[in-house]
């Protein structure tokens, strides 16, 4: 098993390296003169040449990539083009905010979705099952920003129980935390639930068709016991997979949600930096998102191995 995990880790590192090449290529080799972008159209060619030299942009691409990569590995993330402050300082402030939001959303979404999926599978074809299916289909037919804005309309504008924006969240106190995070977390929850509910329902019902379930049914085991002890353990692998996929989706879902609620996280930083073409910040935030995404898929693989004894003893 250790061997399997090590080989997955190796694959993860290899993927991360390819990502770094892609991130660097997408933002560096593409057209658009950085010096002109910083100094403006009316700058003199001499000033642009000096800046290009100072930023090291006159060096060959491979050399710049090597310098960028080793800088990243040493923790030297470079300077933001827009503000001339170290990227590490800008990113450091934001990364905790995003992690807190994503963690809260995940803690709410995963148990809720699996629970609802199980209930749905327990009563297939019932009014509960059908209405849950339709409601979750409607919810995923709306983009996150629409779900977010509808929640704002309901909870902040109509009922006035929560603030519509989380621009300066107050994490020091519990009420402040709840006020800042409820709406963004609910929005994220809405965007990931459907997939997990449906997969839980489908995977459990799939197992329910197996002869051994019929055997358990005929020997008189209770419905609850069949569902939780007989069916769920064998349905776990696909469920874990979808959960991890959706946690990975949380990583990109936060980008939109943070913009909707002007939440000061990495996602909004990324969008703002793309709009101003602040390439060093785009590169660093891009790599952070990629790393999180890869770590989550890696974790899913490992958990899948743990939940499936047949994989556990594979050579």
């Amino acid at each position: 098993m250790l061997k399997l995990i090590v080989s997955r880790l190796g694959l993860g590192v290899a993927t991360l390296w390819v990502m770094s090449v892609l991130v660097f290529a997408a933002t560096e080799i593409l057209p658009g003169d950085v010096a002109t972008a910083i100094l403006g159209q009316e700058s003199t060619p001499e000033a642009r040449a000096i800046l290009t030299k100072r930023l090291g942009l006159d060096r060959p691409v491979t050399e710049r990539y090597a310098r960028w990569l080793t800088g990243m590995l040493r923790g030297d993330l470079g300077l933001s083009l827009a503000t001339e402050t170290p990227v590490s300082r800008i990113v450091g402030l934001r990364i905790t905010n995003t992690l807190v939001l994503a963690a809260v959303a995940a803690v709410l979404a995963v148990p809720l979705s699996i629970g609802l999926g199980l209930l749905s599978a327990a009563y297939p074809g019932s009014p509960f099952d059908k209405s849950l299916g339709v409601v979750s289909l409607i919810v995923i037919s709306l983009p996150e920003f629409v779900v977010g804005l509808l929640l704002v309309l309901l909870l902040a504008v109509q009922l006035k129980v929560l603030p519509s924006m989380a621009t300066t969240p107050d994490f020091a106190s519990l009420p402040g935390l709840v006020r800042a995070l409820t709406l963004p977390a609910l929005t994220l929850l809405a965007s990931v639930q459907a997939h997990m509910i449906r997969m839980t329902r489908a995977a459990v019902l799939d197992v329910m068709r197996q002869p051994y379930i019929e055997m358990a049914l005929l020997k008189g085991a209770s419905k609850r016991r069949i569902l939780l002890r007989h069916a769920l353990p064998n349905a776990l692998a696909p469920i874990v997979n979808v959960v991890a996929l959706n946690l990975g989706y949380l990583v990109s879902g936060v980008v939109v949600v943070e913009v909707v609620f002007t939440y000061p996280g990495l996602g909004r930083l990324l969008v703002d930096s793309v709009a101003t073409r602040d390439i060093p910040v785009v590169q660093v935030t891009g790599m952070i998102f990629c790393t999180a995404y890869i770590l989550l898929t890696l974790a899913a693989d490992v958990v899948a191995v743990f939940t499936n004894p047949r994989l556990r003893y594979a050579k």
Partner: protein
Amino acid sequence: MTGPSAWTASAPGTRTRRARPPLSGLGRIGLGLLALNVLLAAAGPYLAPHAVGEIVARGAFAPASPASLLGGDYLGRDVLSRLLHGARYSLGVAAAATTLGFLAGLTGGFTAAEIRGRFDLAVTWLLDILLSFPPILLALLVIAGLGPTLPVLVGTIAFIQSARVARVARAVAMGIAALEFVEVARARGESLFSVLAREILPNAVRPLAVEYGLRLSYAVLFMSSLSFLGLGIQPPEADWGGMVRQNVSGLYYGAPAAIFPAVLIGLLVLGVNLTVDWLAAGSDRHLSEELR
């Protein structure tokens, strides 16, 4: 969606697979919504009473009047006209990108499944890497480099879609390529193209149609999100996502300018999703499997 209840013991071998599911109520609604949106995209600009940039009302978020049925937006432009013009972007860009990505993915996936060997290995390796890249990130990186022009948007979304389509197409074709009639076709000396197009493709239509629908709804959501972030269709043109972004401040007065484009996006995606569910009802695939 319902199927036989798993809670009743049944004799083995009674599971039947319907060749074509009957058109359910939800399927009807889905097809209706889809048709309505296609009509809007095709005829919208000709039906619109005003031009995209024309100012028809004074002040922001003017109330509805006979001259502008849904009121004005934040600049006093006619909301109804802008919705009708935007339909072309919201559905058009998504459909163009999906079709392009679908054709590319289908070709790659099918060829890999038929040729196998090193080509197949290379394709799967490439797909693994592409699929571990968060799509929104890829789009943002490309837009950061090239700027949000229409060809860049269509190309990026098509590229993102193609990897996902290729994986599904490869899996579907793998199953069919192993069947005897394909073997016979190969032995008869049919060309690669002929085997793919005449033997494999006709037997893969249903799962591929489902896949196309899923990708289309994904593209609509993706495109509208990009526009909402301000990185999609650029002003003065606007798709529905961009209209939500521009008029978001009107949300607090319940202005139609902010709500109608949001609702239309929802109806469009819902229409596609319901149609897909109906298409998928007869096959073994679940909507959830490849949703994202």
